[in-house]
């Protein structure tokens, strides 16, 4: 691992990937923009002609605009599966409002005298539109397209959640992997693209319609080129559709390990773990990276391929907390340790299943669990200091945060605040170090590979065994960060490759080596 690598080295090393991500990003942006123009401009014209529809259409476009982008992508998956389609539809929806609104204001803003003159000279409705209203409204319409383009460059970073590619792969991969170079290698080009696009379109907008008439085709031509480049790779169909999270892609105990240790060179799409399982269930993906305790494994009838060459180290969950925080809150450690050893793999999978699939709230699942295991105490409503619990952005962590909250409220006088959904490891860990939160549940494997990042030999030495890993990270964390690993909760949520049970049975795949052999045969 090149720990001392700087941004430039990263970019040079990953330039092929970066270029393809930029092309994907532009392809997504332009394609959605093109569709948004095709839909938005005629709609804008329509409502400028029939004004009674104007408020309704603008209202609906406005409401769509306010739906958070991640949520919108989430809605798209049941409708369009994963890949380019849902991303483009979601981006299109985002681009609609500025385009419709500006077309409408552009056309209705044309001087009444000029429109009357056009009518009086004998132009019919469409001649008036194309010869007078559109040309005169064009600067305003282009301003709308400009706004939409900039919005889309930003939102397109989220396309990586649905395996549509783009610079989001680096950005979210970097956040998960605690790799600032990777984040910047995605974020800087994304920002530059936004600025570049903004300025190019501004140029079109400032120059009058007359002077740009001659070379106005250049811009759509470039856009079209990017779209073609983007769409091309989507046509190739491989034997398996593979989806990995951005985090999995960059890890030794992930795609890198699969290559090095198993010799398994897959060609995965980058996809968010929030949708990966469902996509596998629905057949959009065949092989996914996942977590071994995820409730959706049960829900969607997936099966984990055994890691026969042990590339996935143990991921025992335990709270990590600053030693000085423990001193500040006497009695906290004993309370947190109440959970030690209480949740094994199958219990965790079941708890996850309840939230992920049965759609129970994390509070309810936490309370049911504590009641069932006799740990539940009614809240004391004490007036002690407030403890802030963090959690990463996936189901299991929400449940753990709730369980800890109830334990602390029931057994200590402290108040609790939960800060859930803190992105990936990097965000949680940085928040902990910066005292934004007091503790969060971490996994030994993550601590080892993402946070400590020791040399490969050390990794090989300590990662074969749960206890060794735990001991190593506990002692290193105290030394390095003054952080204490409390006692393990009891389950091991390691990475895993998984596929549909049915398909695995048909192909007789049980171990990762089986997969390798199967692919080599073809």
């Amino acid at each position, binding site marked *: 691992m090149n720990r001392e690598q700087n941004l430039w080295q990263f970019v040079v090393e990953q330039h092929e990937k970066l270029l393809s991500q930029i092309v994907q990003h532009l392809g997504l942006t332009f394609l959605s923009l093109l569709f948004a123009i095709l839909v938005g401009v005629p709609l804008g014209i329509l409502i400028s002609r029939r004004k009674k529809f104007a408020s309704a259409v603008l209202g609906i476009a406005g409401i769509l605009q306010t739906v958070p982008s991640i949520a919108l992508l989430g809605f798209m998956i049941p409708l369009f599966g994963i890949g380019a389609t849902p991303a483009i539809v979601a981006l299109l929806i985002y681009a609609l409002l500025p385009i419709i609104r500006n077309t409408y204001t552009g056309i209705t803003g044309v001087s009444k*005298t*000029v429109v009357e*003159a056009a009518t*009086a000279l*004998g*132009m019919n409705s469409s001649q008036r539109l194309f010869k007078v209203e559109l040309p005169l409204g064009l600067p305003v319409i282009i301003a709308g397209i400009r706004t939409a383009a900039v919005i889309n460059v930003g939102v397109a970073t989220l396309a990586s959640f649905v395996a549509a590619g783009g610079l989001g792969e680096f950005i979210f991969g970097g956040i998960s992997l605690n790799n600032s170079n990777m984040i910047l290698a995605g974020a800087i080009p994304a920002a530059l693209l936004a600025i570049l696009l903004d300025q190019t379109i501004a140029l079109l907008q400032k120059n009058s319609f*007359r002077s740009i008439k001659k070379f106005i085709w250049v811009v759509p031509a470039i856009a079209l080129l990017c779209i073609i480049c983007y769409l091309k790779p989507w046509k190739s169909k491989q034997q398996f559709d593979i989806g990995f999270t951005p985090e999995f892609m960059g890890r030794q105990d992930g795609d890198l390990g699969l290559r090095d240790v198993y010799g398994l060179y897959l060609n995965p799409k980058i996809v968010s773990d929030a949708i990966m399982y469902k996509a596998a269930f629905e057949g959009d993906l065949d092989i996914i990276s996942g977590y071994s305790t995820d409730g959706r494994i049960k829900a969607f009838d997936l099966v984990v391929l055994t890691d026969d060459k042990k590339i996935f180290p143990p991921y025992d969950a335990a709270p990590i907390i600053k030693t000085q925080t423990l001193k500040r809150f006497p009695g906290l450690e004993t309370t947190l340790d109440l959970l030690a050893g209480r949740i094994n793999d199958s219990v965790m999978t079941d708890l996850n299943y309840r939230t992920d699939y049965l759609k129970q709230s994390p509070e309810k699942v936490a309370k049911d669990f504590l009641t069932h295991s006799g740990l539940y105490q009614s809240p004391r409503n004490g007036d002690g200091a407030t403890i802030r619990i963090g959690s990463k952005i996936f189901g299991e962590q929400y449940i753990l945060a709730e369980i800890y909250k109830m334990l602390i409220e029931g057994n200590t006088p402290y108040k609790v605040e939960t800060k859930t959904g803190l992105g990936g490891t990097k965000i949680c860990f940085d928040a902990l170090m910066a005292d934004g939160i007091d503790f969060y549940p971490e996994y030994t494997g993550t601590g080892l590979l993402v946070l400590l990042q020791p040399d490969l030999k050390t990794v090989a030495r300590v990662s074969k065994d749960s206890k060794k890993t735990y001991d190593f990270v506990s002692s290193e964390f105290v030394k390095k960060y003054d952080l204490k690993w409390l006692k393990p909760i009891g389950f091991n949520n390691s990475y895993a490759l998984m596929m549909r049970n049915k398909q695995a049975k048909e192909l007789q795949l049980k171990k990762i080596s089986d997969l390798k052999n199967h692919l080599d045969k073809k």
Partner: protein
Amino acid sequence: MINLSGISKYFDKAPAVDEISFQANEKEILVLLGPSGCGKTTTLKMINRLIEPDRGSITINGQDIKEQKPENLRRGIGFVMQHSGLFPHYTVEENIAVVPTLLKWDKKKIRNRTMELMEKLHLAGQLLTRLPQELSGGQQQRVGIARALIANTPILLMDEPFGALDNITKADIHSEFKSLEELKNKTIIIVTHDIQEAFELGHRICLMDKGKIVQIGTPKEMLYKPVNDFVSDFFASNRLLLEHKIALIKDVFPFITKDKFGDNIISADASVWDVMQQYSGQNKDLERYDAISKAFNAYRKTQLS
């Protein structure tokens, strides 16, 4: 020949134009005059269907205007607007060529006709490639007129065509307008609130108030045979000037004392105003000035009696 009969138009139930009927004859310049809000512009715009009347009918040469598609009707009627109404994104040439382009004339014919009109309207050739906002107000208005004339339509409607111009430019354009041969064969309806302009340009004046026609007649009839106090009051402040302007030398000729005038020939069709104006500047013409003035007063008495 344009015929309006029983035309009414309501805006929010209030009548803007109330049961009016009149006729504009072939090759006549008819001026719709009246205070603002009297319904004159609404009346004009109903003739090319920019506004549809609520009641009544309009015919052009006996044909109801509703029988044609509005676009086709409008392409056959020249229209000049108050603030020129030129297209800001078109050059002067393109602006003038709008209607022939719609009518699909060939390019050469459009070009020739444009050049012809540019010359007639005293517009320099290098203006062709300019945009309207680069022209002076007077130039813009001339381009607006050229645009209305280019298709040789037999009818021309003008909505306050010179309203936005300063007095000097207006006077220039008025005299050019009157001398334009192109206009002599057209039926022209002009809307204005400028009394002098009405008298200067109109063969007949249609005075309107509150959506109704108060009086319709020649300028002379307006001054010497007003139908009511509204009409006489309306012209009261400009009366003397107007009377001098509408009286022609040939009208007052019988009253001129010839010995004082000598052999000086003056145009019989010039107005008394113009001739007196000309004489008033020179001391040597003092006697002639007096002679005309006296003759005019004598003529006026006959008119008022």
